[in-house]
């Protein structure tokens, strides 16, 4: 049901992204131990599972926020990382793909909802904050029907 892990698997399978962030792609927050940038943080903003009169409909509509962070020393990286993420997600899947997969999820549609730029001031008294490009994507993907067991 959770798309997040499969989204991470998908992003980490793209060399255009791993060339920039390595494996630094995290859920919800940047771990305290991580001090290397650029990196990606993904957050599930909302998830809607339509129902039929019998049970759930078997698909979900999930809005994900994907934040691309770069060090204030290297602002261009936030834009280039955001562009790389956009390039592998917006409009997914490619036309004619029969069973479009992200990890173990079947994702039938991804719609780019918009993006914003932020600057986060440093917390340590230095001049080096963080540049953040925040994008929202809408996903339509499969959802398991509960077994109630």
């Amino acid at each position, binding site marked *: 049901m959770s798309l997040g892990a499969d989204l991470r698997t998908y992003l980490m399978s793209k060399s255009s992204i791993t060339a920039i962030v390595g494996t630094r792609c995290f859920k919800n927050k940047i771990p305290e131990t991580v001090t290397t940038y650029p990196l990606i943080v993904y957050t599930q903003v909302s998830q809607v599972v*339509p*129902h*039929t*009169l*019998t049970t759930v*409909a078997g698909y979900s509509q999930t809005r994900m926020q994907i934040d691309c962070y770069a060090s204030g020393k290297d602002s261009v990286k936030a834009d280039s990382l955001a562009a790389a993420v956009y390039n592998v997600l917006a409009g997914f899947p490619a036309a004619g793909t029969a069973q479009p997969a992200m990890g173990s999820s079947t994702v039938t549609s991804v719609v780019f909802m918009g993006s914003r730029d932020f600057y986060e001031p440093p917390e340590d008294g230095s001049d080096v904050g963080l540049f953040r490009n925040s994008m929202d994507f809408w996903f339509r993907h499969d959802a398991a029907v509960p077994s109630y067991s």
Partner: protein
Amino acid sequence: MAFSYPVKGTVITINSTAIGQIQSVGDIGLQVGKRDVTHLGSAAKEYAPSIGDPQAISVSVIAAATDNGLQAFLSKVNTPSTALDTFSVILPTTTKTFGFSGFPSKGIWKFGDVEGTVMADLEIQPSGALTFPTS
């Protein structure tokens, strides 16, 4: 609390085959006609009931080409038959049933914007009396 029926779990069948992925069902019942029986001695207009007119039933489903019930329904829309079909609307958990004869009178595939899901709007036209759930 008096007993009440939940909508969730309602099943509709056409010739004993259930239609899958139903999201909503419209009104079921008859509209009774009236006839004017006013006469010269009437102090005001007077009416009496005539026979009932079974109203069309709207059903909204998530369209799935593989669903046997939807296939059966749409085949009758594509090729209407003079023979009436048998419909049941089965209330959940109680097996209380509306039963009637009728025919599929509409089957429209509905698309929408890029975030939408392909739906189908179905309409059933009952013919003759309906059997209502009892007890």
